[in-house]
């Protein structure tokens, strides 16, 4: 078994464990995590994400039709998914619908920070092994780099929004 297969299997196992924990925790959690306005705003955020995904797929499709290729189609599609998730998160943060109103924000921040560090490590290792370009095309390192940028934008948005909320509370 080579390192690639080992990495792939460990990744799948970790993903399955995270999925199972998430499912069990959701069952245990109080029945209402988001209030009615937040649910509505999350719907808005999902719609924005859906339009972004459709736009991204159209761009990838057109690029493929006209034989314009900056990267393998698999990487392009994952980039679209990352941008879609970022749009959803940003719109949800804008409307205060990203964290549930009963959520332990401190723990959520710690989790996000942990993922950010893991992503930075991913960028480093994939850039070391594959580089950022191979045969003039973008490699998988760009996916990790996009994820790091996404997390940085997310943290910035959370910080700005938290400040705005604090000012709003003072005006109250």
């Amino acid at each position, binding site marked *: 078994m080579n390192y690639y297969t080992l990495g792939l299997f460990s990744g799948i196992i970790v993903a399955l464990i995270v999925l199972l924990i998430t499912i069990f925790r959701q069952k245990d959690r109080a029945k*209402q995590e988001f*209030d*009615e*306005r*937040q649910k509505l705003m999350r719907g808005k955020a999902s719609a924005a994400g859906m339009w972004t995904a459709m736009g991204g797929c159209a761009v990838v499709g057109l690029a493929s039709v006209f034989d314009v290729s900056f990267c393998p189609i698999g990487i392009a599609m994952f980039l679209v998914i990352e941008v879609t998730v970022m749009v959803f998160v940003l719109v949800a943060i804008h409307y*205060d619908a990203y964290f549930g*109103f009963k959520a332990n924000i401190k723990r959520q921040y710690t989790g996000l920070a942990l993922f950010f560090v893991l992503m930075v490590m991913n960028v480093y290792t994939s850039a070391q092994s594959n580089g950022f370009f191979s045969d003039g095309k973008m490699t998988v390192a760009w996916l990790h780099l996009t994820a790091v940028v996404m997390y940085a934008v997310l943290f910035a948005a959370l910080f700005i929004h938290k400040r705005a*909320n604090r000012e*709003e*509370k003072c005006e*109250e």
Partner: protein
Amino acid sequence: MKNLMLKSARAAKDMSQQALADAVGVSRQTINSIEKGDYNPSIKLCIAICKALDKTLDELFWEQ
């Protein structure tokens, strides 16, 4: 349109937005959005707010 009736009823009870939000089980931002007139709450939430502030629906949500 701003809901000043809700804001003044809350202030009369000496409650912060957070205290009212906790009492009715929503986020502070939701109460703020209702007061600013950015969000129309469901009848269920309106009733919960009225009960928390000891007011009737007319007193808080009926525009004069």
